[in-house]
């Protein structure tokens, strides 16, 4: 049917956004609302000696100035990381204390020291400036390599040497032996640049304490409001879970940055109780750069070995991961179980060893950002493959193909068991779409215009649809990663689906509706998706890790299975037929081979009037499912980027970008393509433009859109997006997840293309014109010297 699985259904949610009727957190005004502003540390590392709020408190319109000592005095707990990672010596990770409002010490520029609540935003901000904090400034360290060095300033007493953990995966001895015996080896230093997620809607929160029943309501920009409620109640003691309602209304993008529960939400809830006012805080953009969790920031040395037939024999990876000043909610998982586990790439590799040292520095916490660990893994693997191919003098596509995993399931040496895929098919499709065969002619033509043309591959694989609860539990996760769904058929036959997934741009109101429409043969206009409110949806794990399709929609399918079973029983009873002869199609319950039928709304009415349902059956038609996946899913694909570099200026233009992805079953190709476009744009942004810069004193130099180069329309090409899918055997719809692939697969393709163009493999992201120009000069000098 035209609105079911595979149809390009236009989005149900679009109208409200297009006519200006979206409802984002900052659009909401509560009665009796006051405004919060935070007093933030201007220093990257300092002892807090005293706080004098008297001038601020004396200002007209200031309601309260509250600090960390009061917060901890009220029993508000420290912010925690929810995933325990164990070091290779068996010791637990060294989690430093993080109070929502700093007490004795501040550890990054922007660390909150106090919250000011006032009648107006202008007054709150002015008053925050009036709070005098006496700091004793301490030495600073901003990058992971310096953080681990002898004599580095120490951030947390319980983390000697700033080491959060020293983690390993794989088998070091056999990997070393394999590399020692390799016919060819390639070694590289690879930096994955630090990024700021930059959802266009800044974070915001409105907390309301109602003294009538000791109840709290929090509107917040969250990707997972139920997790927020759990953490706020169970760990931060802000409010008991049954007395706290968390609502994430329309949310303007997340990309990971809105998974975490930040100091501001905690402080606003607490301040609301202290002041008996609704307390609203909205981040400005500079605050967002200073306080939203950053992404990536890896420094890696890697070595790969091949035998004489160019088969990979071993891979050894050593990574230093900057976690910033504190451990954010999933910060430990990102550079470990979402990174080391993907280092086998699309290839058969017997021996892999990975060591990751996670390091505290005087920078904002680092956590998952679109792709989370997998872009870092894919960048290491795909730059190594391309560089190795060049060094061995073989075609990079051919080298990859020779090493592809071709049989499934495939157990890698780094935990993951790939369930399905056809990597050669994706590569074929991408190469054809990119006219790989015609590239040398295009290169020659570009050279005649004085341009350097290059082509680069990236054959990524990732693990998403997170995740089987027991599996992640055994790896240290503090939560299960199932999803819930409730399918309510109303007495008139319309359907509401309550989901624990959260849409902040992904179009769930459309795609989730499509699977219900397909199942029961109903028009999509009769189906409503409800999400983002802990008072409506009982529990859910939210949206990140490309999980809303493979896990969230699977839960809906399971709940629909139960609805269908009950509907068939009612149908069989009313139509006086055997249950086995009942079919559901075109919005009716029919007896196979007869003209007997009940229309869908008649079934609904029958279930709720309960005048004539099977004996012993409960009235009503509403079913719930908690779906726990049996495995990760493994989207994979081949991306080919073609660039032209101007040797005079070092400017790179992307002239072609082709993607061939395997996402399994696709519900709505239009939405999937949109996800790929956006992911690729973020990957190109990382490769060419974006980079967070702290100076040596820990000041954030890239704290506005004047300083942080966001990709704009004229920086980016059109994308040539294709699909070549294998069905995922692990979930009922056969889906793999498409949200992060673009950001995971694209950076190495871009850098491989530029390095091909300029003839120098030594180039780091972001490949700014200055860097590219310098790399061209270096290559020229090298050539001249030879």
């Amino acid at each position, binding site marked *: 049917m035209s609105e079911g699985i595979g149809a390009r259904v*236009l*989005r149900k*949610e*679009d*109208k*409200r*956004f*297009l*006519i*200006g*009727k*979206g*409802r*984002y957190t*900052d*659009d909401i*005004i509560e009665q009796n609302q006051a405004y919060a502003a935070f007093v933030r540390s201007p220093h990257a590392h300092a002892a807090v000696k005293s706080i004098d709020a008297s001038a601020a408190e004396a200002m007209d319109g200031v309601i309260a100035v509250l600090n960390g000592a009061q917060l901890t005095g009220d029993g508000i707990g420290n912010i925690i990381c929810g995933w325990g990672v164990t070091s290779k010596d068996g010791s637990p990770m060294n989690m430093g204390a993080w109070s929502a409002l700093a007490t004795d010490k501040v550890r990054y520029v922007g660390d909150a020291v106090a919250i000011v609540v006032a009648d107006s935003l*202008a007054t709150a901000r002015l008053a925050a400036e009036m709070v005098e904090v006496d700091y004793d400034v301490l030495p600073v360290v901003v990058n992971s390599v310096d953080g681990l060095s002898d004599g580095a300033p120490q951030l947390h007493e319980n983390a000697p040497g700033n080491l959060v953990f020293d983690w390993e995966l794989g088998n070091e001895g056999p990997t070393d032996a394999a590399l020692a015996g390799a016919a060819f080896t390639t070694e590289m230093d690879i930096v994955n640049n630090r990024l700021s997620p*930059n*959802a*266009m*809607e*800044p974070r915001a929160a409105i907390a309301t304490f109602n003294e009538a029943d000791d109840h709290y309501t929090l509107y917040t920009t969250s990707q997972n409001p139920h997790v927020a409620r759990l953490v706020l109640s169970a760990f931060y003691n802000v409010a008991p879970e049954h007395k706290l309602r968390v609502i994430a209304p*329309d*949310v*303007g*993008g997340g*990309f990971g940055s809105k998974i975490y529960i930040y100091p501001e939400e905690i402080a606003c809830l607490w301040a609301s109780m202290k002041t008996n006012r609704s307390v609203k805080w909205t981040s*400005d*953009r*500079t605050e967002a750069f200073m306080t939203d969790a950053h992404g990536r920031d890896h420094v890696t040395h890697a070595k790969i070995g091949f035998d004489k037939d160019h088969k990979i024999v071993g891979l050894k990876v050593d990574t230093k991961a900057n976690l910033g000043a504190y451990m954010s909610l999933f910060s430990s998982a990102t550079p470990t179980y979402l990174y080391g586990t993907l280092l086998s790439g699309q290839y058969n590799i017997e021996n892999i060893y990975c060591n990751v040292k996670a390091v505290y520095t005087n920078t904002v916490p680092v956590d998952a950002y679109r792709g989370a660990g997998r872009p870092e893994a894919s960048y290491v693997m795909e730059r190594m493959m391309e560089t190795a191919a060049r060094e061995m003098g073989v075609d990079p596509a051919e080298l990859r193909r020779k090493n592809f995993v071709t049989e499934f399931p495939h157990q890698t040496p780094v935990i993951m068991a790939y369930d399905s895929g056809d990597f050669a098919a994706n590569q074929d499709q991408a190469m054809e779409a990119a006219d790989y065969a015609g590239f040398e002619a295009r290169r020659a033509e570009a050279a005649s215009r004085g341009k350097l043309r290059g082509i680069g591959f990236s054959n990524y694989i990732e693990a998403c649809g997170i995740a089987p609860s027991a599996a992640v539990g055994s790896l240290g996760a503090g939560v299960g990663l199932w999803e819930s769904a409730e399918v309510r058929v109303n007495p008139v036959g319309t359907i509401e689906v309550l989901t624990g997934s959260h849409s*902040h*741009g*992904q*179009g769930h109101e459309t795609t989730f509706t499509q699977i219900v429409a397909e199942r029961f043969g109903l028009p999509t206009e009769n189906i409503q998706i409800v999400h983002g409110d802990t008072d409506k949806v009982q529990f859910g794990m939210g949206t990140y890790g490309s999980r809303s399709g493979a896990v969230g929609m699977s839960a809906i399918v399971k709940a629909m299975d139960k609805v269908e079973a009950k509907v068939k029983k009612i149908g069989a009873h009313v139509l006086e037929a055997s249950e086995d002869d009942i079919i559901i199609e075109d919005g009716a319950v029919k007896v196979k081979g007869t003209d007997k039928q009940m229309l869908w709304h008649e079934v609904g009415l029958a279930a709720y009037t309960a005048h004539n349902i099977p004996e012993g059956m409960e009235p009503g038609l509403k079913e719930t499912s908690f779906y726990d996946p049996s495995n990760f899913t493994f989207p994979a694909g081949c991306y080919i980027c073609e660039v032209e570099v101007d040797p005079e200026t070092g400017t790179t233009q992307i002239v072609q970008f082709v993607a061939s992805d395997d996402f399994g079953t696709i519900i709505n190709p*239009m*939405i999937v*393509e*949109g996800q790929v*476009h*956006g*992911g*690729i*744009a*973020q990957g190109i942004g990382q490769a060419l433009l974006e980079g967070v810069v702290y100076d040596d004193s820990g000041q954030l130099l890239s704290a*506005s*859109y*004047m300083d942080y180069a*966001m*990709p*704009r*329309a*004229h920086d*980016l090409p*059109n*994308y040539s997006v294709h699909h070549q899918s294998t069905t995922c055997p692990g979930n009922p719809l056969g889906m793999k997840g498409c949200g992060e692939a*673009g950001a995971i697969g694209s950076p190495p393709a871009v850098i491989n293309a530029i390095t091909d163009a300029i003839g120098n493999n030594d180039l780091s992201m972001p490949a700014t014109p200055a860097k590219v120009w310098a790399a061209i000069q270096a290559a020229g000098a090298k050539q001249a010297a030879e």
Partner: protein
Amino acid sequence: MTVVSMTVNGKAARADVPDNTLLVEYIREHLRLTGTHVGCDTSQCGACVVHVNGKAVKSCAALAVASEGADVTTIEGLANGEMHPMQTAFKENHGLQCGFCTPGMVMTATDMVARYRESGKTLDEAAIRSELEGNICRCTGYHNIVKAIADGASKMASS
């Protein structure tokens, strides 16, 4: 405090506001027209674009008092009973995801089409991309926004 009067979406609006009130604050906080968004502090992102006397303006970079007597159109005022052709084009081309930058994109797009039509210039893909310099989207990678604007331009020409 200053009394400002202007016409917003065809209706007279009048309020006594602090002198330093930005036009976007006036629109969002005083008139409660929250379709106009604030995405940055440096007039870079374009989420706040409205039309003042028929021209696209970043309302975060203008004082409310500077629009005294002006005719202001926000995203809420663009549709006339049914959706504006540009709004329809954004929907049909999947030119939006999270929706936050969308009002600014649409207001910029309609202004862009009108300016090019007036000056007789061709609004091709390169021109659209160049004209979007002041509007940032983090979701779509711009591919479908560019398509939507081209489609919206055709729709506007034939409406």
